[in-house]
């Protein structure tokens, strides 16, 4: 049985993939290796982890406002997350995701950290604002 969450569409589109949870904000400018989609911010929770093709769950963006261009670069380099789920999306992430065509939703009707775990299979319909979660080991 999957779990359905509803949220606010930020950047339209559909994607599915494996969830990667991050509990702290992410700064994309100077915080990301664009060629590989790996987080390079010193002491960051996701340091040295790849966000490529993941359904990336994080609270919000932070830091440099050049981050929009980096999100766009990740999309063009095919190293971007498949989709993004935020607690609250800020303008910097929204703009880069819209330019790069990365689906983004925020403000889900349940706490994403309580429902989604690392490795869960997640379908994101960011056009309708619907997130479907299949717990690890369940049929998709």
């Amino acid at each position, binding site marked *: 049985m999957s779990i359905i969450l509803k949220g606010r569409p930020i950047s339209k589109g559909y994607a599915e993939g494996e969830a990667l949870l991050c509990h702290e904000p992410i700064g994309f400018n*100077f915080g990301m290796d664009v060629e590989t989609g790996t987080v390079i911010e*010193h002491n960051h929770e996701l340091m040295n982890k790849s966000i490529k093709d993941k359904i990336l769950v994080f609270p919000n963006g932070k830091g*440099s*406002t050049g*981050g929009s261009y980096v999100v766009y670069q990740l999309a063009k380099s095919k190293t971007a997350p498949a989709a993004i789920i935020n607690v609250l999306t800020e303008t910097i992430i929204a703009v880069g995701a819209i330019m790069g065509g990365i689906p983004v939703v925020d403000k889900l009707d349940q706490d994403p950290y309580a429902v989604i775990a690392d490795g869960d299979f997640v379908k994101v319909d960011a056009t309708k604002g619907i997130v479907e979660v299949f717990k690890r080991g369940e049929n998709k």
Partner: protein
Amino acid sequence: MKLTDEEKRILDGERGEPMQKAMEMLATLGEIYGAEKTVPINSAHVAGLSLKSHGLAGADWAEDMAKAGARVCVPTTMNVIGVDRSRDLGLPKDWCHNQMRIEDAYECMGCFGTSSCVPYYTGVLPRFGESIAWSESSAVVFTNSVLGARDNREGGPSALAAGLIGRTPLYGFHLDENRRGDILFKVTAKLEDTADYGALGAYVGKIVGTKVPVFDGILNPCIEDLVYLGAALASSGSVAMFHAVGVTPEAPTVAAAFGGKKYDTVLITDKEIAAGKRQLTSAADPKVDYVAIGCPHFTLRQIRDVAMLLRGKKVHKDVTFWIHTNVAIKGLATQLGYRKIIEDAGAVLTQDLCTVLSIPEALGFKTLATSSPKMAFYAPGGNNLMTWYGSDKQCVDAAVRGYWDN
């Protein structure tokens, strides 16, 4: 969001494709964030112009916009880039070439090539209560907090879109109700220089995230202290605005800063400032081969102070020492003789660039010393440079001796 007739025509493509794309971006942001309408702006500031942020994909995008006829209609300043247009610093040629493609594309769109993160010193100074569309995280905090202008944390492309249309959606920090404080930080710590203010910002930014911190107990800071506080708040966190009671214009009293909202109080003593400095320190090897200060770009006062510290001294033969500012302030520093003192000592006063947005790591440096909290935050990941953080004096001493004295 309610569009004006002119905005509807732009959205229908009557004014060409770049304007249509820009309007689409503003309309989308307005819809997402619940703006009722757009408001006119008097200026925009576009950040993310380094090749590091744009990449070749972004350079192509900017050139396409310029070729398709995109032209800004309000004064639009440009942020720091990755090269110094006045000299060869030995950076890779192809990198400089692609960086200048981006610079040229934006200048072609009518932007001012001021290449600085402190455009309020060298280009456009927003007034109290004015809505603007600026990116550059440190400048957003400064204009909101210290000038009392109204600005959201715009991404580079949305700032450009606003510059093209001359308007921005009315949401977030353009509205009174979102400008009030959320958490009180009672400061008993002694703040002696910009490095202390930077440490305070780094410590608090990580705690508050997107919220508005209110500082009580910051006594008679100079403008540079507030610039460095804001820069640190906006790199370790997502802060768009702070209040300092009795200092910033929307916080004559604690009560005014919070506007009736309930709040928690956090105490800031010398211990928390020391913790902020530790947060910004990533180096272990005392041997320093690169010293860089001026992020955000140094003002005349800061350059004078560093020139006085450097007078009669020589930078160690194994150390490269860059002091970052923009072409305007460099011009003044040249006229007043500070640049000569700095260059006689073997340091370099750079223009246009900064460490974070350039690639000094291509020159083979291993360990950085800086007094800039924003640089100390980004350099370990962004430049692959382990970093010592301290005052301007500690940085000058490290440059002269070749090692950091902890």
